Every structure is written in C-alpha cells, then in structure tokens.
C-alpha cells in the first residue's frame, strides 16, 4: 500500500509528501477498509449460519427479506439499533458501557495480521501469530467486565465460564500452532502462507515439487492433527456449540450478555461473529494455505512487482481476486463445519469441557509438537546440526520417512490418549455413581 501510494502521490502527482504522511494515509485507508469489511462479514455469517442450520434441521430458514432472505441481517441490524438500551439500576454503569468496547476492539485488531491475498496483508508482523493470539485473549477481560458490571448471577456465571474456557483452550490452540511454527521456523503469518506452496508435498520439504499452491500443512500428519486440535480449540474460543457453555441459553439465559440490550448486545454479537470469522480464517491460513491455490502463484508472478518490473497490473488484480476467493472459500468452509458441529452435537458440561481440554487436547498437542520436531529433524537437519545418518537420503525419501514416522507417532498417541481418557471418564463416572448411591439409604 505504501509503495503504491508513494508512487501515486510523489511520483505521478509530484506532491512531494513526506514519508510519514503517505504511510499514515495508507494505514488509515486499510483500517477503514477493514472496519467496513468486518461488520459485512459478520452480517453475512449470521445469515449464512441461519440458513445452513435450518437446512440441517429440515427447514428453509429466513428467506423473506430480499432475494432468498439475503437482507435479513440488515433487518436484524435495524431492529438492534432501534431497541432500547437498558442499564440495570444495580449495574456498574461505566464498566457496563466499556465491556462491549473492550470485547469488540481486540477482534478488530486481529484483522491486522490476516493476509487476504498475495501481498494483501495490513501489517506483516514478524510475530504475527503471537500478536493474533495475544490480542484475542484481551476479549476475556471484556467478558469478565460485562459479567461483573451487570450485577447479575447469570451474567457473572457466564463470564466466569467464558474466562475459564478461554484460558483453558488457548493452551491447546497455541500448542497446535507451535507445531506449524516449528515446521516453518517463523511466526509471520505471511511467511507461513508462503511456505504452503507445492502439490500435496510442500516446496519447503521437497524443492522439486511443482508449485500449484497445494502444499498445505493439513496434508501432513503433523498439520492434520494440529488442524483438528486447533479447530476444536477454536470452537471453544469462539464459544460455538458444543462449547457454548458461557452463554448456554437453556441454563444461564445468555451468560454475560444477559443484561445487555440494543446495540451493546449487538456489539457482543458482532464481536462473536467476527471472532468466529477470524478463527476460521486463521485455520484456513495456517493449515490450509490461506490464499494459496491453483493459479494464484502463477498470476502473482506475472504481475507487477519489484522482482518483475515489466509485469502488468492486470495480473496483480487477478491474482488478488483469486487469492481472496480461495481465502474466503476456505474460511466459509470452516465456518460451515462450525455450523455442522452445532447441528450435530449437544452442549458439553463444564467439567467435561475442562477434562477434554486438559486431559486430552493438551497431551495430544504436546505429542504433536514432538512429531513436528521429528519432521523438522528428518527433513531439514543435516550433519551440521549433528544428524548425519540422513545425509545420504534423497529429499523424497526423507519426506517419506518423516511422513511415516510422524503418522505412526500421532496415530499411536491418539489411540492411547483416547483409551486413557475414556478409562478416566468411566472411572470418574463410577465414582460419581458410588457417591450418589452411597448417599442414598438403600432399601433392599
């Protein structure tokens, strides 16, 4: 963006602006664009979810407002704006007002590092992934503020559940991302996407592979397990069924949102759907190549770039469009899986949620980190790192051995952990039952 504006303002128009002004203009433009895009995505997601879940329940869903009901979210938004904003008399007014803002703001920040297409990233931070997850945890503070300020037992219960859940599930989410970080050796989201070129086998592992943008990490055992674990953790982070415990409407009304109405409630809703969009997007970016796909790399290479000054800007445009298309298609696919899970599974109990996170997901992701290390050791390391028995192997053999070994580690770990977990749950169930039977006077 900076180069483009600089070329336009100082080159073509010859206005001679200072560098900081051009940079400011560029960032303001990008930020404005994202602030417009985020609510539109949220509106679309509400419509998408309602239509998809309706189909899963043999219904049609909203189809009255506009063609196939596409303007339904607009109608919902208008309704939300015209509702009365109620603040409970016993509430802490200022914290109550501030909470939705604290929840929404981090989700907007998270857009800063998400790449939409080739070269289409607001900021290419070298710690982008860390930034993404660090900033997302701030919204837990907002949730706690909302629950506390509402002065309502349901709200407080919901907030405590939300914070407990977010804190517990951030660990498996980050651990599964660490496996990918180990494979790529970078925290930059842009470079993680760039490392996923190739055809089933990534070009990073096997230099000779034709690059059609399909070397996604999900095709490796490490990436597959990481993707599954991350997606499950993302369901919990985004408070989606079966982990929608914080707002379990049949138990605690709407959790921390109980005392919110009007546009404040709308902001929570916005934050939730934007967060879901971002979690789906980061799943697509980290494990499924983001904008990578057949054709994008080739189009981008034909386009105008510092490496290729003779290229045509038309190719840049098409590369961007195709990249954004692939990115959004993958993101919407993952959101469809979220809806699918919502259609299929009932809500977990709080103790089940904690057990699953701490006793199953975290050990599994830890094992996955080990197999990521094995993968890196076999495919990358050589004699200079002190690993000389792979020196004579061809890259394809290295890749094959790494694949088989990590696959074996992950499958064995999964089966063992599943068995252990099932045994632990069964034992716990027996203890519960004994407690229950023991407390009741048994009459023969």
């Amino acid at each position, binding site marked *: 963006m900076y180069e483009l504006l600089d070329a336009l303002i100082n080159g073509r128009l010859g206005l001679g602006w200072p560098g900081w002004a051009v940079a400011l203009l560029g960032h303001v433009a990008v930020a404005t664009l994202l602030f417009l895009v985020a609510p539109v995505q949220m509106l679309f997601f509400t419509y998408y979810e309602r239509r998809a879940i309706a189909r*899963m329940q*043999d219904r049609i869903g909203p189809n009255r407002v506009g063609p196939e009901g596409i303007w339904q979210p607009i109608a919902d938004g208008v309704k939300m704006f015209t509702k009365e904003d109620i603040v409970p008399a016993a509430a802490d007014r200022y914290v109550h007002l501030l909470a939705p803002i604290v929840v929404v703001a981090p989700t907007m920040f998270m857009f800063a590092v998400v790449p939409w297409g080739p070269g289409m990233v607001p900021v290419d931070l070298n710690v982008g992934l860390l930034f993404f997850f660090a900033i997302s945890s701030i919204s837990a503070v907002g949730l706690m503020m909302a629950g506390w300020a509402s002065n309502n037992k349901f709200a407080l219960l919901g907030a405590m559940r939300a914070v407990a859940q977010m804190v517990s599930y951030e660990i498996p989410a980050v651990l599964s991302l660490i496996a990918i970080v180990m494979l790529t050796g970078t925290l930059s989201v842009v470079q993680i996407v760039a490392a996923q070129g190739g055809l089933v086998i990534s070009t990073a592992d096997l230099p000779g592979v034709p690059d059609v943008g399909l070397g996604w990490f999900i095709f490796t055992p490490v990436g597959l397990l990481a993707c599954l674990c991350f997606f499950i953790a993302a369901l919990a982070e985004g408070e989606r069924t079966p982990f929608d415990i914080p707002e379990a409407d049949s138990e605690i009304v709407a959790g921390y949102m109980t005392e919110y109405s009007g546009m404040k409630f709308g902001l929570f809703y916005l934050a939730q759907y934007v967060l879901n969009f971002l979690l789906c997007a980061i799943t697509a970016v980290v494990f499924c190549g983001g904008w990578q796909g057949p054709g994008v790399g080739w189009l981008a290479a034909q386009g105008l770039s510092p490496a290729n000054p003779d290229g045509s800007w038309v190719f840049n445009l098409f590369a961007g469009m195709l990249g954004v298309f692939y990115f959004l298609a993958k993101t919407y696919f993952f959101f469809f899986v979220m809806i*699918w899970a919502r259609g299929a599974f009932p809500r977990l109990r709080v103790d089940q949620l904690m057990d699953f996170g701490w006793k199953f997901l975290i050990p599994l992701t830890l094992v996955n980190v080990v197999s990521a290390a094995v993968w890196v050791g076999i495919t990358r390391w050589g004699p200079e790192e002190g690993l000389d028995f792979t020196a004579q192997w061809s890259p394809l053999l290295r890749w094959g051995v790494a694949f088989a070994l990590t696959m074996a580690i992950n499958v064995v770990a999964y089966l063992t952990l*599943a068995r252990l977990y*099932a045994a632990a749950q069964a034992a716990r169930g027996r203890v519960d039952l004994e407690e229950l039977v023991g407390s009741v006077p048994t009459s023969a």
Partner: protein
Amino acid sequence: MAIERGNVIIVERGRRKERLPGSGLLEGMAVVWRHWQGSFRKNRSFSQIHGTFTLEYPEERPKLPEAYRNMPILLYDEETGHELCTSCFQCQRICPPQVIHMTQAKDPATGKPVPAVAEFVIEYDACMSCGFCAEVCPFDAIKMDHEFELSTADHGSLTVAKEQLNRPIGYYERIAPTMWAEVREQALKKLQGNIKRRPGVLGMAPNLAEKIAARLRELATTAPVEAAPTTPPGPSAPAGRLSPEEKAARLAAIRARNDAAPADAPPPPAPAGARDGHGEPAPSDVPPAVNPADAKAARLAAIRARNAARAQEQAPPEPPAPPASRARTDEPEG
C-alpha cells in the same frame, strides 16, 4: 418393582463395541450431513425423515381436510333463496362459550313465530371452533368454514351478523363435498317443509335482493288476498293483538309495579337486609320465609321488569317486524 424416590437405577447396556475413538462424533455429523443434503428437495410425505417439510404459507396453501373446522357459517339454498336456519336455538344452547345469539322471525300479520331466523350473530372473537353448533343443528344450517385468515384491525368486526355469515350451499359443497352429500337429501327435504311455513319473504337470505323481489312479485300476482296482511304496517295492527313476549312484558311490568311500591318505600334498609346474613335477618320488609338471596333476586327482577315496562310505555306497540319493513322498502324497487 416399585421405584422409590431417590433410588438410583443403573441401566446395563452391555459392553461397548470396540470402535475407533471419535467415530461416534463422525457418525453424528454424518446424520446431520444427510439431512443437509436431503433438505434441498421438498418432502410432502410424512413417512420420510429427509427433505424440507416447510410449507411457504402465503404462496403455498395447505390442502385442508373436509372435516377441518374453523368458524361457523350459515347456509342458504341458492335456488329458492331460503336460509336453512329455522331458529330452533339448538346451537345457541349448546355453544360452550355462548357466542351464538339469534332472534326468531315472526309473522308480521299474526305475530306468531315462524321457522326462520330474523337476526343471527356469532362473536367470532370468542368462538372456540369446537363445532358443536354444526354437530347439533338438526337442519344442517350451520356448518364449519375453512376460512382461517380472520385477523382484523378492529375488534368489533369480529362480531359477525347474518349478512356476513350467509354462504350458499354450493360453497359448502365445494369445501366439503362428501360431508354435504351425506346430509343433502334430508337437509333439502326439511327446508322444503319449512319454506311452506314461512309467509312472504321471511327466511330468505337478505343478500339475494333479486330473489326477494321476484318472490314478492310472485306473491302479489298469485295470491293478492294472502299478500294483503303483509302490507299493512305496524300501527294498523290491532292494539289488542300482542305477541306472547309483549304480553309477558306487560304482565311483568304490572307485577313489578305492584311489588316495587312497598319495596321502594323504605329504601335504606332494603340492601342492608339483603346483604348481611350475620346480623339481624331484617324481618321488617322481607317475609320471613324468603331468604336474603331470594329477596335480592326478586328485587332485581322487579327492577328489570319496571325498566322494561317504562320502555314499553315510552314506545307503545312498536311495529314488531323488521322483515315487513324491508318488504315495504323493497317493493317499489322491484
């Protein structure tokens, strides 16, 4: 086996099959996936579980079964123009929410009741659609309609009079062909019998103006002697000829005036004596045999009768027949 409260029942489900962990989740998702796939075609067969059942209401209409019932309507015969209702009051009696009200038509010449209905009102807002009225009607005059879009902006329009309740038999035949075929014979036979007992144009559906006019013309040409009594208006009716109701009202008024004279004289103790059962039994103005409740009822009846009598005095023998007046206005038109 008696299950006591608080006891724990352990259900033995047998050993679980050894399966790949997580396959249960995938099976659950597969079920939902099949529903999602199937939902893109419509399902109108209730033996199937896949497919969309939704009927998109304003565009698609449900096919209502014949016996569907919503609100009662009245039938009239298009050929003769006569209503099937004979004002037998069966429906009014059986109606659980008591929303059916009617008055019987009277021969304007003789003042005698005629097997036809003068005014018929149903309060649709309180009707519970039980269909008892249609079940009980011996003349198959009241039937249950299939129309269900009755919402309105004003409450009052849900009190529906005869003009809006009337439907031709053909309408009912269309919505419930077999049900009408079952009763058609006897209903029309009874109607023919009733038509003979209806003088003039009594019992004809008021919306059939041409039919009524034609019938009046026919009456004027074929039987001028018989038609003559219908033309003299109310005032010319002899004062001595009163309908039974008018007689009863007069009688009640006279009785009330006689009763009211002593009751009016000491007004303050009267309600007190009627009200308190715990204090003195107020022997002064109430005969000792009568208990307070009866006394109260009697007094209420007396007041009502007095009011009725007063109304009677203000408007002496009123022309009792709206059909007659309608006949008079319709005659020049036809």
